[in-house]
């Protein structure tokens, strides 16, 4: 953790830069939801929300949680298990669509 002062000042700057990015992205998301719902195909908006949320998640994990400054192998052990979540998401959304087609509800 022994870093020279020059790096310290950059880090504080980077924190505030990240704060601005996260705020702007949130404002843009909400503006899109309020102003564009009904005017654009919902699928376009949904893709936009997901991409923006992943952007926010990247900045929180990389800068606030400091992960981009850690060892490569630590990053890998943390990120690889997330592949299971993508698999679970896709499988269960397909499952949900199948419940719908069976008219369980």
């Amino acid at each position, binding site marked *: 953790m022994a870093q020279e002062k020059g790096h310290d000042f950059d880090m504080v700057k980077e924190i505030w830069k990240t704060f601005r990015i996260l705020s702007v992205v949130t404002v843009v998301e909400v503006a899109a939801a309020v102003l564009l719902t009904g005017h654009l195909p919902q699928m376009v908006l949904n893709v936009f929300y997901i991409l923006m949320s992943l952007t926010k998640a990247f900045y929180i994990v990389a800068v606030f949680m400091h992960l981009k400054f850690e*060892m490569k192998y630590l990053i890998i052990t943390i990120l690889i298990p997330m592949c299971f979540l993508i698999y679970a998401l896709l499988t269960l959304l397909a499952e949900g669509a199948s419940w719908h087609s069976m008219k369980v509800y």
Partner: protein
Amino acid sequence: MAEAATLPAPNVKENIWNGGFSPFKVSWGKLMMWYFLVGDSFSFASFLITYGALRFSYDSWPQPTKVFEAMPFLEGVKVPLGFVSFMTFTLIASSVTMVLAVHYGNHEKNRKKVAKWMFWTIIGGIIFLSSQAWEWTHLITEGMTMSGNPFGASAFGWLFFTITGFHGFHVFTGVVINCSVLSKVVKGDYDRKGSYEMIEKCGLYWHFVDLVWVFVFMAFYLL
């Protein structure tokens, strides 16, 4: 570990895993906090994936800009997603104050600055929890329960209460942990120990709560 990590690895390819050297260059506590958070992300993901699966099984789903449009102190004024934007902003801001506390702890060991920023983090957490309490109260008075709601699909209510409730419980736990760590900072425990790493571990947890909110916010308020 800090000492061990700075030792040169004699032959990196063969000996990095043989002990006496931290292959990830982090302390045990920080590594375990990371792995706890990996596990916790699976609990939240299970909730949100369940939400997705149930949502796909319904013909229609409540429109978020219609459900979440009330503001406290402004009876009858409709601001779609206004209040939740404020809550999101509070949580992001409290994440910033937390990361500043971590930074001043790790790099300057500056007790006053750490205490100041941790204090604002706790205030942010309390504002968020109060806002959530108000939002829940409002939705309950509108008739949203675990079994039904006036907005549409019956599963919407219980999914909203369980998922935002589980997240709110994490925020609450984070506030409690931050309070106890702040009291240790003020007492000077970490100065005596010579390391402010505990702030960093709490910070990881606190940012994780913010990270989860990004996806809860997306699932309930945007999609």
